[in-house]
């Protein structure tokens, strides 16, 4: 261990309190130049809070913070940027209408002698920055037209344009395809080589082993341990996180496959091409595909949340009308969408109100809500899913990302009595390992009760772990079907891969940089 190196950032005894929650309690943390330091912990453990303190979004309630050995106190993100610290959030804060170059130098455009913006310098410097990262993105393109992965790269380039010495990434890979993850990691390797310090938050252990040098594990706002990654095992990391040994990640009971439940025939529209398949009662059908293959669109079209141009959807013998989610719900469907903020959360409302939104009728006489019944039901799921919140009345916007996702999952679990088919799009995105196991267990239990489950995921291990049957999608059409026994990583990858190399025209993984 290189104790002698001066840390780029050092935090001592950091404390942060929100009403009813101690988010961080006496936390020590440091990052060195050229190091990737991973943050790991259950949902609500305090990772994002620590990052927001580093970024100047929140002010700490206690403790001290040093940059290059100097005491600092950030009052705003601008202060942090001044100390060359930049955070790349999951919800990227780029300006959609502006070009790549304009975004990269936002707030500090190169000027001509006369004081006008020097557009040619702007462009060439942007191109140079991106080239440094091994990327080819057209500086003239509006950012709104880029894919998420590319936008992330623009954010990183923006950080470099401000000479950032510390770049923080909060769950950067949750919406990236495997190829895009490779590119990101190659870029991270280049940043390391330049001596940039990186703080990396992720729930994916394999990523931590691929890129991190050290890892700090949090539990309930406290630091459990900081350790060289090379000295740890995944099992140990999980045990530190959840405070006990995790037994079985994929609990899977013997499936009792019933009669056909959902029959989809010749579905097209919203980019789907003639999709047909059947889900049986009690069956978990996994839909696997790369980003952009249309797996999430499929769920939306079936549910009526995205446009259906042709084809039929039949649930338990009844035709489901196109483009009418209310009809789908009435016939017994539920949909957990992949875009939590846009389609799921009602941010100003409480945890309880968010949870019972789709099942409110259950707790109401005519229109009168029986508050006690509603509260009891919500409390039950807060306990079962281990949702961390100081109270049921807490506005959901104050929950951590993973706890928000669990609340949305509970929204449909509360309807289980009238639910026949549950469509889950990336239900474990942003969820910690321990809670994932709990969600898989719930899915399994619902299937046992005879419900049909349609499970969309871009993550292979979970699809392989819980699906009875797997359909693979490619370019809006189903390209292969495997039973649980037949399926394997290699087969899924082969069936999902596009003939052309997966739209990588603008995003070239740099060669030579080791990931």
């Amino acid at each position: 261990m290189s104790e002698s190196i001066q840390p780029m950032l050092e935090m001592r005894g950091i404390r942060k309190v929100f009403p009813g929650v101690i988010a961080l309690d006496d936390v020590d943390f440091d990052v060195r130049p050229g190091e990737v330091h991973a943050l790991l912990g259950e949902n609500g453990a305090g990772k994002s809070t620590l990052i927001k303190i580093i970024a100047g979004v929140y002010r700490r309630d206690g403790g001290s913070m040093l940059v290059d050995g100097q005491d600092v106190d950030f009052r705003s993100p601008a202060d942090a940027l001044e100390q060359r610290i930049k955070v790349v959030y999951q919800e990227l804060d780029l300006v959609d209408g502006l070009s790549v170059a304009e975004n990269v130098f936002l707030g500090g455009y190169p000027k001509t002698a006369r004081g006008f913006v020097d557009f040619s310098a702007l462009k060439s410097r942007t191109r140079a920055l991106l080239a440094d990262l091994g990327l080819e993105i057209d500086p003239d393109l509006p950012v709104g037209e880029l894919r998420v992965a590319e936008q992330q790269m623009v954010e990183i380039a923006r950080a470099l344009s401000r000479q950032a010495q510390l770049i923080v990434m909060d769950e950067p890979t949750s919406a990236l395809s495997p190829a895009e993850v490779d590119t990101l990691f190659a870029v991270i390797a280049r940043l390391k080589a330049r001596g940039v310090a990186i703080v990396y938050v992720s729930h994916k252990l394999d990523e931590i082993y691929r890129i991190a040098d050290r890892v700090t594990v949090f539990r309930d706002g406290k630091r459990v341990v900081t350790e060289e990654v090379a000295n740890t095992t995944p099992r140990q990391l999980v045990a530190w996180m959840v405070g006990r040994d995790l037994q079985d990640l994929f609990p899977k009971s013997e499936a009792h496959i019933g009669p056909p439940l959902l029959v989809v025939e010749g579905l097209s529209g919203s980019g789907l091409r003639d999709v047909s398949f059947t889900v049986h009662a009690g069956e978990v059908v996994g839909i696997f595909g790369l980003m952009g293959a249309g797996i999430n669109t499929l769920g939306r079209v079936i549910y009526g949340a995205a446009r259906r141009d042709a084809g039929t959807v039949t649930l338990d013998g009844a035709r489901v009308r196109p483009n009418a989610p209310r009809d789908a719900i009435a016939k017994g469907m539920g949909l957990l969408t992949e875009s939590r903020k846009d389609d799921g959360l009602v941010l100003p409302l409480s945890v309880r109100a968010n949870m019972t939104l789709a099942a409110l009728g259950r707790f109401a006489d005519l229109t009168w809500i029986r508050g006690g019944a509603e509260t009891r039901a919500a409390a039950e799921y807060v306990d079962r899913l281990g949702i961390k919140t100081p109270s049921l009345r807490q506005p959901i916007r104050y929950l951590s990302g993973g706890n928000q996702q669990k609340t949305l999952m509970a929204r449909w679990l509360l309807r289980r009595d009238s639910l026949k088919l549950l469509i889950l799009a990336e239900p474990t995105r942003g969820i910690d390992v321990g809670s994932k196991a709990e969600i898989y267990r719930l899915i399994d239990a619902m299937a046992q009760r005879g419900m049909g489950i349609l499970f969309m995921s871009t993550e292979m291990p979970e699809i392989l772990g819980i699906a009875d049957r797997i359909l693979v999608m490619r370019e809006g059409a189903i390209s292969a079907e495997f039973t649980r026994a037949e399926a394997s990583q290699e087969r899924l990858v082969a069936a999902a891969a596009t003939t052309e190399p997966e739209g990588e025209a603008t995003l070239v993984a740099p060669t030579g940089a080791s990931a």
Partner: protein
Amino acid sequence: MKKTNIALASKRTAVWRSLLLQYGGLLLALLLLMVAFSLKTDHFLSLTTLRTISNQIPYAVLLAVGMTCVMIVGGIDLSVGSVMFVAAALAGKLVLGGQPLWLACAVILLTGLVYGAVNALFITRLRVIPFIVTLAMLSILRGLAYTFTDAAVQNAHNIEAFRAIGIGFIAQLPVVGRVPWPVVITAVIFAVFAVILTRTTLGRYIYAVGGNPRAAALSGVRVYGVKTLAFVITAVLAALSAFILIARMNSGQNNAGFGFELQVIGAVLLGGASLAGGQGTLVGTLLAVLLLGTLNNGIILLGINSHWQVAVNGFAILIAVFLDARRRRALGQD
């Protein structure tokens, strides 16, 4: 799994604390103003002043109740003042023409209903933003009403039929004395909507639609229906408040409802609603209306130039928006 045992978490105290956090500022401001005004003038706390305020408050509260619903659902209604005006003119004309009072009442409530529905139609089906639709309505209604009432009605005073309601009282009550009808009607309507918003599925859906219409729709909420209802409620309450206003003034007035929309929006914002929707409560709105009412009254009692009243409303909006922005900043939501 960990036991959170959230249901049992010290319920009562938590409720009070959050109430205090939410409304403490408004309540404090209200009390301070009252104390300040009563120190400055000898008769601020007299029964007459309370009467004056309670005379002015009812229609403002009715308008604000509707506006709160519309703003929670994520909309805004700039046309309430004009709806009031049209309703007042129409009622005056009918009663003058010898129609019975109940008919006039029914007609203007119906007008409110139709306006609300028309607003909602443009907003939900044609997807024009509420600001534009109701801004257009503001001018259209006022213009129409000017045309068809041709100034005759407005000068007819002392319509006997209105008097009973306008300055009538319900029976003598202990302590408070005689309570005017408008206050009673307003109190009942306020209570009904407070219950609807907090205790019924409809209320919950109003908040959900305002907070995130897409999420609400995917959870099975009738988004268009809820929006329509909110706009209809607002217009109907505006019409009703017109009725109370003309009853009190005992005339259909030329400028009835003029500029009310901004006063009311100011109060609702100050009461905790947000232009983004999904937020706001009737209690907050009521406190804000009382606060502004007291302020206006105090200005008159202190003999300050009454044009300040107009400015006060502008300040109220600015303060409300400032507080909202500061709260967001503190929570790191920007």
